[in-house]
């Protein structure tokens, strides 16, 4: 059956009065009656915002609905209106909430492994140090400039204008968006880089 013959999940819920439908729809819950009906409660996404993203894992491009409340991801599920995945997800797509908040003892807490601050490792050091963005951006820019200044080649041995440096390389990124990758391309060519690669060969 083609997808346009099916009513979307959202349409179904809308028709039943939205998030409170769970308590009032004719379902198994009603038949239980009494205390079980009270326990059924409200949908956890009742007060959440719903945004659509595309899965960050494989190349199928499944649509995912991300529900958030107070800047916390509370729930994800496949987008039933995306004709490619029709609401289904694999184990990885279903887990993208874990990038920010994981379930721990029934509650959503921040994933502590997630990098949330700029880290710097000095020469010979055994540890990371936390730094701030302003500092990092300036230090990185200085290193890029120093390396470029020390190795930039305006013309090659044959006198051809080359405007390049072989001393810096850029890896990335199949994980990132088109607009980001386009800016990366301008960035690396602006600096004069030749050594550029990313996940396509891996």
């Amino acid at each position, binding site marked *: 059956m083609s997808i*346009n013959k099916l009513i979307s999940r959202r349409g179904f819920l809308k028709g039943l009065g939205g998030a409170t439908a769970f308590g009032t729809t004719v379902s198994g819950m009603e038949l239980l009656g009494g205390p079980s009906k009270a326990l059924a409660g409200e949908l956890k996404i009742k007060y959440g915002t719903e945004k659509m993203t*595309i*899965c960050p*894992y*494989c*190349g*199928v*491009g*499944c649509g995912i609905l*991300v529900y*958030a409340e107070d*800047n916390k*991801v509370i729930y994800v599920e496949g987008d039933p209106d995306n*004709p490619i995945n029709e609401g*289904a997800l694999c*184990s990885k797509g279903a*887990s*993208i909430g*874990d*990038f*920010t908040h*994981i379930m721990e003892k029934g509650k959503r807490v921040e*994933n502590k*492994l*997630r*990098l*949330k601050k700029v*880290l710097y*490792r000095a*020469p010979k050091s055994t540890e990371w140090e936390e730094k701030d963005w302003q500092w*990092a*951006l300036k230090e*990185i*820019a200085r290193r*890029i400039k120093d390396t470029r200044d020390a190795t930039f080649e305006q013309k*090659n041995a*044959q006198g051809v*204008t080359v*405007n390049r440096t072989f*001393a810096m*390389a850029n*890896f*990335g*990124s*199949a*994980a*990132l*968006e*088109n*607009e980001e*990758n386009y800016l*990366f391309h301008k*960035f690396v060519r*602006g600096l*004069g880089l*030749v*050594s550029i690669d990313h*996940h396509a*060969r*891996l």
Partner: protein
Amino acid sequence: MTNHWIDYKNSDVFLIIGANPAENHPLAMKWIHRAKEQRGAKVIVVDPRYSRTCASADMVAHIRPGTDIAFINGIIKYALDHGSYHHDYVINYTNASYLVREDFIFNDGEFSGLQEKDGKEVYDKGTWKYQLDEEGKPIKDITLTNSRCVFQLLKKHVERYDIETVCQVTGCDRQTYETVARTYTSTGIAGRAGNVIYAMGITQHSVGTQNVRILAMLQLILGNMGIAGGGVNAQRGECNVQGSTDMAMLYHIIPGYLAVPKDFAHPNLADYIQKETPPGGYWVNKPKFFVSLLKAFYGENATPQNNFGYDYFPKCDANDHSHQSIIKDTHEGTINGMMIWGQNPVVGGPNTSYTVEALKKLDWMVAIDLFETETGAFWKAPDVNPEEVDTEVFMLPAASVYEKEGSVTNSGRWIQWRYKAIEPIGECKSDLWIVDRIFNEVRDLYKSQGGAYPDPILKMNWDYGGSFEKKPDVKKIALEVNGYDVASGQGITSFGVLKDDGSTACGNWIYAGYFADPENPACKKRELDDPGDLGVFLNYSYAWPLNRRILYNRCSADINGKPWNNEKPIFSYSGGKWTNLDVPDFNATIEPEVSGSSPFIMTVEGVGRLFSDSPLDGPFPEHYEPVESPVKNAFSKREFMPVANIWKHDHSKLVEKGDPNYPIIASTMRVTEHYQSGVMTRNLPSLVELMPEMYAEISRELAAEYRIEPGEMILISSPRGQIKVRAMVTSRNKPLYIRGNVHHLVCMPWHWGFKGLSTGASANTLVPNVGDANSSIPESKAFMCNIRKI
């Protein structure tokens, strides 16, 4: 992909080779199963092991890793011998009838033109050309009987690939092979669609390009290109590897698959235009794409007077600057600084230990990611003494998928928009913000301090409204990628309007149309109408090029415009009019006979190439053994691909044929629950719970021979290194009987490294630095190792 995911439902037979969709593209199975249920489609899986996908297969052919060309050449021979190829399609839509020069020769594993240059073998392709008439046009024989026509040369080339020899070399049993050949070639008739699905099992070889080419040739012979349910379908591994490839984050290209300008070939703009523009086919428009790109890059600083800023653009040299070369150049001290965006080369690239050794030589590294990676933390790797490592590392916290917005392109070329659900957590920033900031900081330094020729930076067109407080405007960037008329700023809806005079700007010509109207861009469309139930969904997102969902779709109808398949016609022509369900990949305003004379608009000839002078390593695919292989080549005197890329250094010693120290064939693979180098999955508790640990699959027979118990820790070694992993003993993995001998196989997921919630050994520790001549892709799918009990 030439087709797309939903189109799988229109296939009659699937040939899934070097791919494991049930594992790595799970939602592909929805469409494969739809075809099985609704059309009785048959599924053939060709894989060294019994993969998750095999569980849905009607036929499973187990082959030795690296023998795909033998397998497919045998099927091509079968089709030619039995006449089960699509005759009208082959005559009209391929170069089968073209005559090749008399001095083109193939002899015992070598094509004419093989020579030595700088200590390496390379091909001079001068003889790989057509015979031309007085007007310079290829001479054809449409009876396909002339001994120099491509059809006859192909027939002669595949003569050695008889079923017996193919089964000996691949290890596939004869009965299965004949069933597969018969079933797949049954799609060589009008009205039946055969779908070839492939992935890294096909590409990651020293003959990877030829592997892909032979799949395309098979589809051309059977008439499966450009039809619903057909095509050559690369299942790409990352959410936007298609987009990042389109945006050319690779050394040898620039956005839209234009060649990178090179010092020895293109000193000036005129040289580039002259050398890069072919005499025929749609690429004759290359100057328009290239000049429009320069205009997008350098804006007002790109004028006819300064050749549109051509000199600002860095020129590549004649050397390889792909991943494996970058690592070697870093090890040898040429590369001092490195930026790594959402990638983890220590785990993901071949030869892990060598990669770590190389990174130790860097002055500085910037790694941008969601979690601490093995690459950013290479100085903490096992066996590394941080006090001996001087590298400065900046590890920058990045925003994840739903903490920002932008577009991504799936394998089917559908460009879909992502919306932001939450603000980046902690101090995370989107990569868009990060690159904008870094560029601006560098530019400010050059403005205030001067330095090495700063113009390529100062003259770059880069003004997207970004600041420390504010992200750059993604819509402005998208409009630039899309292309616009310079005078009015209006977005263009087709690359057909691009000019080479500086009046148009376009960051990536193939994306023209995806974001022409920033307030209502085509890629954000969400309409679900699908007339004809073809699954094209023309009003859902936007596919490049020009929203064509099935490429080469002129081939879906005969030379007169009559569809091969009346049940699912993409187009039909009658009464002087085309009725179409997909965007035509041809000129639908001219007679069908005319558009039918060049349905493959991107080639010079306009037809599909069964014989091609494009690859560096041969015009016809030929079986060679992998660079590391225990088996002597049955087809010629050359053991492995003569012009393969081999990076010669002390950390990549290769296993000689027959070396008893490394007698076991090894291959890498993936699992559903983990992803690439594991950064995005081994840090998530739910996925770690599902797939907690690194392991290696070995057969029951191999386990018995080495007295290895299921679940026991074992050592796997190669000349590149050694790893300790848990042995999974399983009948999914079987010994291979090759040319009279038994050979064993070890298959390992490559997702693990020493950081994260779940840590483990990296399979890439074992992989050598060898690769394909054209793509430099590493041969991760076929190399040699040994195993032992600990």
